[in-house]
């Protein structure tokens, strides 16, 4: 293993659950306001996973009061407190960008099974 790989592997997180496109996740995000820090929860469907190693990222889409919202997170970012996997989804694609054009029931993803947390 070369030095650059070692550096990258040393800052990888180990507490991230295995998830892929179509899964519903809860992201606990640390937000700094002045010198105070709070945690904001963002829940939605993973529509894409990108990159590998320390550069890997994922995009979460949700419907917020009728408006579609997408947020992209770096998986290994220290700004993420934790990631919780809620449901597995039944999808046939790696990138679910088609969800952007769907509305209502069409934008729903069939859930495979509940994932037991706690």
């Amino acid at each position: 293993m070369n030095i650059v790989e070692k550096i990258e592997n040393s800052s990888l997180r180990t507490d991230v659950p295995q998830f892929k496109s179509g899964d519903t996740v809860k992201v606990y995000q640390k937000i700094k306001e002045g010198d105070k820090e709070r945690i904001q929860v963002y829940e939605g469907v993973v529509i894409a996973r990108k990159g590998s190693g320390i550069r890997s990222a994922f995009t979460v889409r949700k419907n917020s009061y009728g408006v579609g919202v997408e947020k992209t997170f770096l998986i290994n970012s220290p700004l993420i407190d934790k990631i919780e996997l809620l449901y597995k989804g039944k999808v046939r694609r790696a990138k679910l960008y088609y969800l952007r054009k769907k509305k209502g029931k069409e934008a729903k993803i069939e859930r495979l099974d509940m994932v037991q947390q706690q």
Partner: protein
Amino acid sequence: MIKALIGKKIGMTQIFDKDGMIVPVTVIKAGPCIVVEKKNKQTDGYDALQLGYGEAKSFRLNKPVLGKFTKNNLTPLKVLKEFRGSEIDEIKIGDTIDISIFNDVTSVSITGITKGKGYQGVVKRWGFGGGKDTHGSMFHRAPGSIGQSSYPSKVFKGLRMPGHMGMSKNTVLNLKLVKIDGEQNLMYVKGAVPGANNNIIYIYAADKSGRKLNK
């Protein structure tokens, strides 16, 4: 005190800083360097240290260079580089200078040989705009006119033309020192550094304007 080292570019990556932001960094193996020669004002006209880096097999060096090492019982070294600076009285020949001299430094300037690009045209070498590719342009990446006819009747010196590009000395000023790993002699510098990976580079502590501190 001379705050400069010889090092090797390892490669680029990204790390998270303390605010959680991702920072592009170049990883550099800096030193440890060995003092091979000392120069002083009386005999040489200036104060300087000659540092050596990277072990070499003795049969690969010629006799005058090898003599420098055998005279002082040092192991032969590949790279030799002189760094000027005063306050070098306590340092002796054979001393090791390692990355800890950069511990209180916030930014560095780095000199190296850039990647060779070969023979390049004016668009890549000098940033000329070139012409339109389509619409019957007939003028694409050529340099265009290089002067007038009867007056001045010559091409001015220094006119930007095609030619060999890269493989030249280049210094990047004021790179932020993100992290120092003293155990492994590694240095993390924000941004890019001249040359390919495994390139030999010279690292200088920088002052506020990015100039080399030891000059």
